[in-house]
């Protein structure tokens, strides 16, 4: 597996985990759920998106391959 693909895989897992945390936090109306959403869900999704965007930057073009 190429490095780029490995990054995409990690990005998708981070985003998936983050969205599932957000989903769980949306299930309950409580301040702790709100904090879980902000402090765990959002950073995971953000980290995944950043990792995905970085993988795009680092991907070699067809001429480089």
């Amino acid at each position: 597996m190429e490095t780029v693909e490995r990054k995409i895989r990690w990005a998708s897992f981070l985003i998936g985990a983050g969205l599932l945390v957000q989903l769980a936090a949306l299930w309950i109306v409580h301040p702790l759920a709100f904090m879980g959403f902000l402090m765990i869900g959002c950073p995971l999704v953000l980290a995944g998106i950043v990792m995905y965007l970085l993988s795009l930057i680092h991907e070699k073009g067809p001429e480089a391959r």
Partner: protein
Amino acid sequence: MPVSVVLLFCFAAAVIALFVGFRVQLTRSREGKILAFVALFALPVMAAWTGFSEQMDRATSTQFCLSCHVMSDFGKTLYIDDPSYIPARHFQNNRIPRDHACYTCHTEYTMFGGVKAKARGLQHLWVQYIRGAPKPEAIKLYQPFPNSECLHCHLGARRFEEGSAHNKVPDLLSRVKANKLSCVSSGCHEFVHDVASLKDDTFWKEKQ
């Protein structure tokens, strides 16, 4: 947007993102790259934003404020069967939206009022779970209740401007409007959330 739609959207976005992760070889093709962009950028951004906006809206709800045990007595004061209790009178007569009752009166109607309210909410969480919550009767406002919160709705209203009690003294209204005479702590509308006397109160039961 209904909560069920937000939940469904978040779930679908998570499933699609994980699908791309498990079938990462798909991203070698042009269509796969488009799918990856949608699944790992567009959908997560949209799902996180809708979730965030739902959470921010929810954080202003009465249910949210009263979900901490220490606040439950304050919630009960909204049902006191006595019109001299200002929060109860406002709540029971729909003068404030019942599902956003706390936030309607306890946020500042200024540019950063909402942000300040959220910051205070974070402080409350710290007190509730780390420092230890005080007894409900020991909870006080950070600063005297500003008249601007009352005037946000009452200013210009006929009953407020022309009411006999408000015009007994010539400069009373101007002092109220200038926040020099408090609506709630000057002896005029002093019954607010009197949690200490809850056991002696009778409560309004809403007819179904």
